[in-house]
């Protein structure tokens, strides 16, 4: 009993295959066109961007050089002394690291609250009025398009030096970026609960509160956490407005070629990124109910 299927005679198969192939061919043509366009874009961009792979491969051996040069020499027998020499400024750097994280935290928090409030107004499935929706969308777009640099500069002039302009600039950018992502999440929700709430007489606000927020909260949190990590790194470029943070010291070390400082600070930042990644991964998995999924 080897066969579980009675094969149709070829005459009968042929038209079925033909029909299938015709349908697939249309789709494939579509795909080919897309790939064709992408290929053309690549060629154009490579020309514009002066891409020379041969140069890259000819000198690829220089890739690790920088890392070699910043690696300090540690001797086993004087390890303690060498380490404390390497991390001579640890207290200060740790304080800067905390500053950086706080700047990122405040920026993320304020931005996320703003994005949270605006994203519902920007969602096509919740707001019928195209005017409100477009206004919200354009505003979010504006917030994330104008570079942080510009905002930071304006705020420095307005609010004076210190971390405030940095935090505000980060917050505005975060609001724009998160607002867009949040709105996309909201547009992908299951509308059945929304209908359920509406049908029982809930107002717009309560519908959002009960039928939408519970559905999106975990996604929002995971986007927010991701943004936090990005902002921790971004907060470093806020240094130029006097916002301080570890990034400023790192850039100074790079520019003044204090090699051992570069590696010391770099390791601190990498450690911070790893810790944040580990923590956010845990939180995300808990939110996704990853453990429960079997």
């Amino acid at each position, binding site marked *: 009993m080897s066969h579980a299927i009675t094969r149709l005679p070829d005459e009968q198969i042929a038209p079925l295959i033909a029909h299938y192939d015709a349908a697939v061919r249309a789709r494939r043509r579509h795909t080919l066109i897309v790939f064709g366009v992408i290929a053309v874009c690549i060629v154009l961009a490579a020309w514009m961007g002066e891409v020379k792979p041969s140069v890259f491969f000819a000198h690829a051996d*220089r890739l690790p050089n920088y890392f070699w040069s910043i690696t300090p020499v540690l001797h086993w027998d004087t390890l303690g002394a060498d380490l404390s020499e390497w991390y001579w400024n640890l*207290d200060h750097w740790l304080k800067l690291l905390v500053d950086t994280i706080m700047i990122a935290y405040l920026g993320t928090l304020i931005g996320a609250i703003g994005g949270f409030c605006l994203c519902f107004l920007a969602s096509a499935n919740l707001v019928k009025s195209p005017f409100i929706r477009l206004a919200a969308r354009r505003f979010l777009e504006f917030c994330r398009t104008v570079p942080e640099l510009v905002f930071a500069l304006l705020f420095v002039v307005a609010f*004076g*030096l210190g971390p405030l302009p940095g935090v505000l600039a980060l917050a505005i950018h975060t609001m724009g970026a998160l607002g867009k992502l949040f709105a996309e999440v909201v547009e992908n929700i299951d509308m059945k609960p929304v209908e359920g709430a509406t049908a029982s007489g809930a107002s717009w606000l309560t519908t959002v509160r009960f039928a939408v927020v519970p559905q999106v909260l975990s996604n929002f949190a995971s986007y927010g956490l991701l943004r936090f990590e990005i902002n921790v790194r971004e907060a470093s470029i806020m240094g*130029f407005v*006097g916002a301080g943070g570890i990034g*400023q010291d790192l850039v100074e070390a790079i*520019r003044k*070629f*204090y090699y051992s400082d570069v590696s010391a600070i770099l390791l601190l930042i990498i450690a911070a990124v790893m810790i944040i990644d580990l923590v956010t991964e845990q939180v995300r998995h808990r939110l996704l109910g990853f453990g429960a999924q079997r």
Partner: protein
Amino acid sequence: AQDWKAKYPELVFAIIPAENASGVTERFQPLMDYLSKQLGTKVTLRIANDYAAVIEGQRAGNIHIASYGPSSFARALMTGAKIDAFAIEVNLDGTKGYHSVLYVKADSPYKSIEDLKGKNLCLVDPNSTSGNNVPRFALNKMGLKPDEFFGKVVYAGSHENAVIAVQQGTCDAAFNWWNDEQESNLKRMERKGMAKYDDFRIIYKSDLIVNSPYAYLSDMPSDLKAKIRDAFFSIQQNDKGAFDKIYEGKQQPWQPIDNEAYVQIIELNKFVDDLRKKKN
């Protein structure tokens, strides 16, 4: 003897836009065309926003000629880049440098640095020659420890920010760059409607800081280097337009220079480097 042409089919000329420069591409392109013609090799202009990139590029031999700020050139020498300064910018009055000045508000009572004890001081950023290194060096010479003498020492982030900080009262005094009565950061801010020149008063002016040099790789063939120098110093005769385009008539022709002239700046950098580990 021109076998270097095979080895250098293209020369890269790197520029870091100075603090007060705009339209760098437009202004330097004629110079590239001129050099290409004079050297018979294509000279490509690259503008980098960070001199660390230029220094690394020169160390790797990817950048053949570069213009530097004085401090960053000194830094390049200190990190072992094999480069030689060969030309220096000259001001209209024939001097070859600029100054770091200390501004206070015109209506404030401060007359000298001593009056500023316990007040807030704005520096520019830790990398700025006129906005940080020279001031610290000078204060040190006066026997003052900035972090003890002043109430607070703040990095403003840019020369403009430093001026604004004084205007707003965040700082009582700020260091800034200053060429002469005609050209300084404050003058430029006045032209843009951001500050009034007469609102401020200078209470200290530093020694001359040597102007920016042009430097090339030491390992290049000597006849190539000679050709480059020739091209630079004969530009006034061969292509005055190209030169004027760069400085808009605010500078005299380049003059020869060598690394010797920057020893003092290297000293300055070393002084600042030493400060760092003592500071905390």
